[in-house]
């Protein structure tokens, strides 16, 4: 009787352990992929990275390079270039970026803003 109980006990604990390990594994494999953040990239280097979270207070700042400037605004989970002194203002016309993988480029000022996070594709052609 005593032997029997010990055996059942053992099987149960092994089962419990396997379940716990699987759960822990799933959790750890899934960390940090859903959160959105915007990278501000100048000349190919990330000069600033901003977390995009709902409910964050809006912020605005200016990025400069050789007399060229872009005014960037962040509101919750969105980011946009709201003003710039580039000739075509292409970056301003792009409007708000909201989704992972979205980006805007201001070629004259060598500036790019890109939202990183979980994207459904490996690249987007344009």
């Amino acid at each position: 009787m005593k032997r029997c109980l010990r055996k059942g006990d053992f099987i149960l604990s092994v089962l419990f352990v396997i379940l716990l390990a699987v759960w822990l594994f799933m959790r750890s494999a899934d960390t940090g992929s859903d959160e959105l953040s915007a990278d501000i990239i100048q000349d190919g280097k990330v000069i600033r990275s901003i977390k995009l979270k709902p409910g964050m207070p809006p912020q605005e700042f200016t990025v400069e390079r050789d007399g060229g400037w872009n005014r960037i605004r962040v509101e919750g989970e969105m980011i946009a270039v709201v003003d710039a002194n580039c000739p075509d203002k292409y970056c301003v016309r792009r409007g708000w970026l909201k989704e992972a993988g979205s980006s805007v480029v201001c070629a004259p000022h060598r500036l790019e803003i890109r939202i990183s996070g979980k994207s459904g594709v490996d690249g987007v052609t344009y």
Partner: protein
Amino acid sequence: MPSVIIAALSMAVIFLAARTYMSGLSEPSSAQRESYRLGTVVRLTVWGADKALLDRALDDSMAEITRLESLLSVNIATSDVSKINANSGRVVAVSPETKEVVALAIKNAEKTNGAFDPTIGSLVRLWGIGTKNARVPSDSEIDAARALVDYRRVFLYEKGGKSYVAVGRGQSLDLGGIAKGWIADRIDALLKERGVKSAIVDLGGNIYALGESPKGREWKLGLQHPQKPRGEYFAVVDAVDISVVTSGAYERYFEKDGVRYHHILDPSTGRPAQSDLISVSVVSKKSADADALCTALFVMGLDRSAVFLKRHPDIQAVLVKGGNNAVFITPDLKGCFELTDGTMALEVLK
């Protein structure tokens, strides 16, 4: 008590084994380089086990892109293309690479009956779309510039191991519609030569997907949605060792008196193409062909494109019509194309 210890140990072992297995399987190391080249953002991403190899391959690739740009760019005064243009009507010695791109451009011009034409430089400069000099030229200016656009007047040859190119007097080469694609092909070859098995070569939206994804499946490439901000796509193409290039009127344009003037010029009218298409993507093993052909198909419009694609079944394309956003694909794309925007209708070309 022993069962508790066995339990704890086995848990640790299972957990660690699973993590190690999965990280070894799905997360090989990756490396990336990004830079402003070719008038756009160039981003190379490679995956593999040997980080040092990846870094070397990327550094060499970026150096190669810079070198090729210095030969092919119209915006660099010392480039081969600038020399050819400055000496129009005369023979100019050029690098073998420049001659190769010009030859390929002429081939694509012939294939598309001039819908793609690398001698469009005079018109590109006149309109200045995408620069601070963008303006609507007068009819006589357009006619004068258009008269200079004719790929049949380009002349190239090799002699004593040297390469030479000449354009007609006043003509101006602009390889902007093919150079990025051709460079993507070169980088694809260079990376493979260095042992890279998995990479995304992104030259300003011209993408070459090398090998397969590190996740052990084909690459998923999104096609830019013509009405949404960059990065948002309307469809996904599965890609292995293939290039996808997209042309759209939304990409570069200026507005004057309420009219939008986009950057894809029609060589036959000298004006932005009055196409019924708003986006064209070409899927091809050769990125240079994809690059040139997607501009050409855009200029041709839907009906002429459909006829052209039927005559060239080796070319795979995705066409989006303006107005109703109808999407047309070539038959061979069935099975590796997925429309993700539910508001668009899909039709397979015959």
